């Protein structure tokens, strides 16, 4: 009996992991197309429309192109680290999706299947931990390329990511104090209906959002790959699918970051009037994905609106504005929690 149960669980989780992996890759692939389409619309252009209807096959064409390109490695590169870096970046990007609750429960073959790979009781710490590992991919890649621009960019990126993680963590602590849990599922459950965390933590959300942009290396904080100054940044020396991995992992990061924003601040799979258990549990998934896609759109919207920060401005914003603000936010939240709970 125990063996049967374990086998079933193993099977269920494997399928879930596979499905999540596929969906993540699919979303990341189509995010590249969406990015170009959004950019085009914002600039009154058309965007890619040659590959299939509305350019829908563009991500596949891009993928094929990446595979067909020459895989060039500079002579002076640190061979193994050079190969390892894109893989590590991709791996870390994919790992973060494990703790995100995509919906409540599906009932399949008479057994409830939680739409979450692992309901860790330290979900938020897990995500913070893995996002901070993400800097290794950039750092190692930039360093192993043995190119001064790559190195500059890697140093910038790591400094930026480390600086903004601080404010990000501080903003999240306020949410944790409010909800009293580190588990993302419990957090999502607490925000039933319209009882979303963002109403209690508007400042915290703003800080978290800005930090998420910086963590994902997205404009206006795309210091790591400013084309104009650093000729592409840490992936200057990369070509073929290795470059593809770097670019792809960034889109996965964006997807995950948006999912985390949706779960932590915008009620996850909850939406007033739409019970997440409808359609056999699919409703929650739909709501969750809709929120995630909305934030992905906002990320793109910001990218095609705001110019890049200068490096010192970036550091100033991170250390002199966001960190103190996050601390104030933490202090205020703590006071409120103390006053209202006693």
């Amino acid at each position, binding site marked *: 009996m125990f063996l049967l149960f374990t086998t079933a669980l193993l099977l269920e989780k494997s399928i879930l992991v596979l499905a999540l992996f596929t969906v993540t890759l699919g979303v990341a692939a189509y995010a590249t197309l969406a990015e170009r389409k959004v950019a085009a619309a914002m600039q009154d252009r058309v965007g890619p429309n040659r590959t299939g209807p509305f350019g829908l096959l563009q991500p596949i064409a891009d993928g094929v192109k990446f595979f067909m390109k020459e895989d060039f490695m500079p002579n002076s590169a640190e061979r193994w680290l050079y190969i390892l870096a894109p893989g590590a970046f991709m791996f870390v990007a994919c790992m973060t999706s494990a703790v995100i609750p995509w919906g409540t429960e599906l009932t399949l073959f008479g057994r409830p299947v939680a739409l979450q790979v692992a309901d860790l009781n330290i979900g938020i710490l897990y995500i913070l931990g893995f996002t901070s590992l993400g800097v290794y991919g950039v750092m190692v890649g930039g360093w192993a390329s043995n190119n001064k621009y790559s190195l500059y960019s890697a140093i910038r990126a790591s400094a930026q990511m480390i600086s903004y993680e601080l404010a990000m963590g501080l903003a999240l602590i306020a949410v944790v104090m409010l909800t009293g849990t580190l588990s993302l599922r419990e957090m999502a459950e607490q925000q039933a209906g319209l009882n979303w965390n963002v109403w209690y933590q508007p400042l915290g959300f703003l800080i978290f959002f800005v930090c998420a942009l910086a963590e994902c290396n997205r404009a206006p904080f795309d210091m790591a790959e400013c084309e104009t100054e650093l000729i592409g940044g840490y992936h200057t020396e990369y070509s073929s699918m290795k470059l593809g991995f770097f670019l792809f992992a960034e889109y996965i990061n964006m997807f995950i970051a948006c999912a985390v924003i949706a779960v932590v601040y915008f009620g996850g799979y909850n939406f007033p009037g739409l019970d997440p258990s409808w359609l056999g549990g699919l409703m929650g998934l739909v709501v969750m994905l809709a929120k995630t896609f909305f934030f992905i759109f906002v990320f793109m*919207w910001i990218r095609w609106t705001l110019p890049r920060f200068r490096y010192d401005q970036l550091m100033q914003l991170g250390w002199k504005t966001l960190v103190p603000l996050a601390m104030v936010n933490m202090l205020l939240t703590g006071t409120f929690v103390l006053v209202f709970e006693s």
Partner: protein
Amino acid sequence: MQSLTNRSKVVVNKEMSFGERLYLPAVFQGMWITLKHFVRALIKGPNTVRYPEEKRSFAPIWRGWHVLKRDEEGRERCTACGLCAVACPAEAITMVAAERQQGEEHLYREEKYAAVYEINMLRCIFCGLCEEACPKEAIFLTDRIVPADYVRQNFIFGKELLVEGIEPDKRIDVSKRQKHLTEKQAPPA
């Protein structure tokens, strides 16, 4: 110095107000603008022309690939007087004159003609001064684009590329350009 247009702005490196230092109002302002463009593009479609399928029409007075006209009977109008070459500011035109022989009356309208007539399309600036200089209405600029090429030599267009065909369907219509030129050269009323 006095400003003539009143459009110049004096750059002031003034201290930013608190609202400006917040940066957020400016962010939202910018995002509002891009959103307007986004929505507009979704509803009304983009401003661009889908090029290979859709082509924008040329201006009726477009100045492109030159043509050496023939007259109604199919005789070349050019008499190799060289006024176009003199007028050309880019020194793009050269020609060699020759005398019309017996039996060539159906080919050349006057006793003298251009045996060689070359325009270097890399030198030409398509200003149209050759048309204005021509006393015989022989040379005109048309709305055809000079095609790209890999070899410089191929940009020197000789008579085979410049003179229009004799057959009526190979004649090149320059009436719009001609009308423009007459209007331009008409004495002010």
